[in-house]
């Protein structure tokens, strides 16, 4: 059946199509979208498999609230940091909410990432061919925890300050490399103004960049390898049942073929028949 020509296309639609074709010719965006969005996933995909995406969304939320906080925050140890936190919390419109979301978002992110990992672990989804997906994910967990550690100091209050002094001392106590790591984190032998700006830069630039990179890798692996199928999906259970039936049938045949074999009722468990032999 051929399409009937009904005259020239709507110019707006034609313009859009031409623009997409122009970009696609140069970037392959159509293929890319098809590869990313319209790939098939196993049918029995479960609600538990939404946690990875959720972790990514929470990271996005942290990025947005973090950008807003950075518009007001001053990394100054001479009272500036503390005052800017006070200002954000008490003066800025919705400032308390943005700060609250960022603070709670950190805890939520840790929980979601942990649950995501537990799901992958319990399902054995880290097995061939997804080993490297797991490795990138493990780095993402460590980066997330490091994010919490560096962000904690920025509010520059007593609790945060001393907890971070202790935490940095812990890093510094490691054999061989420890003292160097301590100096790098503190920006010198003592806690001071340089420490705060260093934590600020690590928290805002270094780790977010690293997390974004690892999310990119993680996603690439997921799309390339496909998301795993629940080990108890309907399809898997059917296959396992068929395999079990085939095994029983084979054992029954073997029992029959033996000289002097009795015809055991087929309802007997296979093990009993094997031992009876």
């Amino acid at each position, binding site marked *: 059946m051929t399409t009937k020509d009904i005259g020239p296309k709507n110019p707006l639609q034609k313009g859009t199509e031409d623009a997409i074709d122009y970009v696609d010719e140069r970037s392959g965006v159509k293929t890319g979208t098809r590869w990313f969005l319209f790939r098939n996933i196993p049918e029995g995909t479960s609600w538990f498999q939404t946690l990875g995406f959720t972790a990514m969304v929470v990271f996005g939320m942290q990025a947005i609230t973090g950008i807003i906080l950075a518009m007001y925050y001053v990394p100054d140890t001479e009272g500036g940091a503390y005052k800017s936190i006070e200002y954000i919390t008490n003066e800025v419109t919705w400032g308390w909410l943005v700060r609250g979301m960022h603070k709670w978002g950190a805890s939520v992110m840790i929980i979601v990432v942990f649950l995501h990992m537990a799901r992958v672990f319990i399902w054995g989804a880290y097995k061939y061919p997804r080993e490297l997906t797991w490795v990138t994910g493990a780095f993402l967990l460590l980066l997330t925890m490091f994010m919490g550690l560096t962000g904690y100091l920025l509010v520059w209050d007593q609790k945060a300050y001393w907890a971070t002094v202790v935490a940095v001392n812990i890093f510094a106590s490691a*054999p061989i490399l420890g003292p160097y790591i301590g100096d790098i984190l503190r920006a010198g032998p003592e806690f001071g103004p340089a420490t705060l700006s260093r934590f600020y830069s690590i928290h805002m630039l270094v780790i977010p960049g690293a997390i974004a990179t690892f999310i990119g890798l993680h996603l690439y692996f997921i799309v390339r390898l496909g998301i795993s199928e629940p080990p108890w999906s309907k399809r898997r259970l059917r296959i396992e049942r068929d395999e079990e039936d085939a095994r029983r049938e084979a054992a029954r045949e073997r029992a029959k073929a033996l000289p002097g074999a009795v015809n055991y009722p087929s309802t007997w468990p296979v093990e009993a028949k094997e031992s009876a032999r």
Partner: protein
Amino acid sequence: MKPADKKAYDKDYAQAKKTGKPFFPYAIFKDTIVAGLVVVATIILAITVRVEVGEPVNPSTTDFVPRPEWYFYFAFELLKIFANQNALTPVIMATFMVPNILIILLVIWPFIDRGPERRIWKRPFAMGMIVLVTGFLCYTTYLGANSPGGVGSGGLPLTGLDEAGTAGMAVYMANGCASCHMVAGVGAPGPGPDLTNFGSKGWDTAKQVAWLKAPNAPMPSYASLPPAELESLANFVNGLGTKYK
């Protein structure tokens, strides 16, 4: 995993994919619902449990409880578990060995557990590991959340306090020593060791002052205290269990 197992898995997964459904919109639909719920829950938390502004930093007083965020409580509790061993053990075990072993295990786990089996009940080792690690993390986080906070200004139940002893105890209490150390049952049970019988070590004042200025991690340095207070504190700690019981 043997090449045959790999092949079998690839074949099986290709089959699952073939009979599957597209990522968009099926998976995205569920993803959006769960992610949306989590974001809404965060906003509700932010509205109902407001974050407050704490005390401003004052590096010269350490009258505080060094509490990390709750997701580091397990590390904090590890310090306590090893706190009452000898001087080197807590540092090496709690701050280096245990965390690094956990991190390495975490990263290389897929290369340890390589069997093709994915069903829960057929992987007792892996399931045992996750129950063990999760149980340990939950238990230590619970302990951390319930660990005693400040010890107040009541002082320590010691006898034999002379004038120097009372002054030393005042420095001890004012600088938050009790938030990491226990003396005669008062103070936090860690991360620092119990100091009740510290005097039996027979340190002299100079050695103790040098230690307070540059202690082993994770204890913070007390170099910012005035020399007179440092000396008074050093004499007090050196007398615990011998002069002051």
